[in-house]
């Protein structure tokens, strides 16, 4: 069932790109079926993904939206973590051997290929869950922690944590504090407010990649 919640969030991300003027298409169908990668196991080539393309200043930009794709750390080229949803540059998925003890193939994207990513949690928000997300940000996008991240054009959402459950007073304080320090989105209560958050008028309130907005 939690896969379905992840699907719902994936749908919202696709909707964001559609509403931002991107053309969306589906790639890598397997025997005519969309094969959803619902865990970190498996090689990306055997699963389907979405593409988002847009022409800006006469240049075509194309990106891929993947489920559960390993992303290289920005500190150590041999370590990886797997966000639930990643947006990467086109054709940047790599397959290598030797990552596992066995000679199993390992698919991943290197740091330069990563655009943004999303973590999905089907829980009520609690402090440790939210601070874990900051750990992932630090590993994959440390420039966000230092507020030196460059805006990536055309527009992309800043890395976001999407949580199904409703916040309490304390987790709302944590959201306020973290969003005042880092250019990220902490999206709570996606079950009930997801449609509004990702509506035409709602997406304007979401942070895009780059530095913290000036006050």
């Amino acid at each position: 069932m939690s896969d379905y919640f992840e699907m719902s969030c994936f749908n919202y991300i696709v909707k964001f790109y559609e509403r931002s003027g991107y053309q969306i298409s589906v790639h890598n169908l397997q025997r005519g079926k969309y094969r959803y990668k619902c865990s970190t196991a498996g090689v990306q080539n055997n699963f389907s993904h979405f593409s988002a393309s847009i022409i800006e200043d006469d240049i075509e930009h194309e990106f891929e939206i993947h489920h559960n794709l390993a992303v290289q750390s920005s500190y150590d080229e041999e370590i990886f973590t797997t966000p639930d949803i990643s947006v990467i540059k086109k054709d940047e998925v790599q397959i290598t051997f030797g990552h596992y003890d066995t000679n199993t193939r390992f698919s991943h994207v290197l740091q330069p290929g990563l655009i943004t990513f999303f973590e999905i949690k089907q829980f009520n928000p609690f402090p440790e869950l939210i601070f874990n997300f900051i750990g992932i940000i630090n590993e994959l996008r440390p420039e966000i922690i230092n507020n030196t991240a460059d805006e990536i054009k055309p527009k992309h959402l800043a890395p976001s944590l999407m949580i199904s459950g409703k916040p309490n007073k304390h987790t709302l304080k944590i959201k306020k504090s973290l969003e005042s320090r880092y250019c990220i989105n902490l999206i709570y209560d996606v079950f009930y407010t997801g449609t509004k958050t990702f509506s035409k008028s709602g997406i304007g309130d979401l942070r895009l990649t780059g530095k913290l907005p000036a006050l």
Partner: protein
Amino acid sequence: MAKETPIINIFTYGLPYELTHQIYNEFQERIRETLYLINNTDKYRMLKRNYKTVELLMALSIFYKRVIANLDAAVKFHGTVLRLSQADTIRIGNYELTTDEKNKILGLLMSYQKLLRRFNISEAIWNYSLTKEFLSKIIYLKEFGNVNDQEENSTNKKEGGQKNEVDEDEIPF
């Protein structure tokens, strides 16, 4: 007289074990809190007479959150894939969400919506985190027949509210 089947068993009948377990545990936990609040606080005591209804709506709200909302998400994702590609099936592990399967889910979602309309239940009633929030919504539904505008009103009521025998924020378990 035959023993009545607990409402939560009816809701979870035929569901996979893991999901049944989650629903059952959440239900039991919230019912325990509900009984405590009904028996020990002035504010919720009025629900004592409607306990069976509270129990039924509680079970339905958990079923909505853990089953209906997720199925709805699957149907929407299926719609997106169908709209943007030639695929008619989504494969998730060994499970295949085909168009037939999607239509069955859609039928279930429609029956559910029909049920809510029939009994004039707004989906806003499921939008709660704490059990006491849910109980407040039920009280509002009982008094005014609609919970949509409850949130604004409840903020105003909070300050001048009745003093409870025990503090509803301090449930001892």
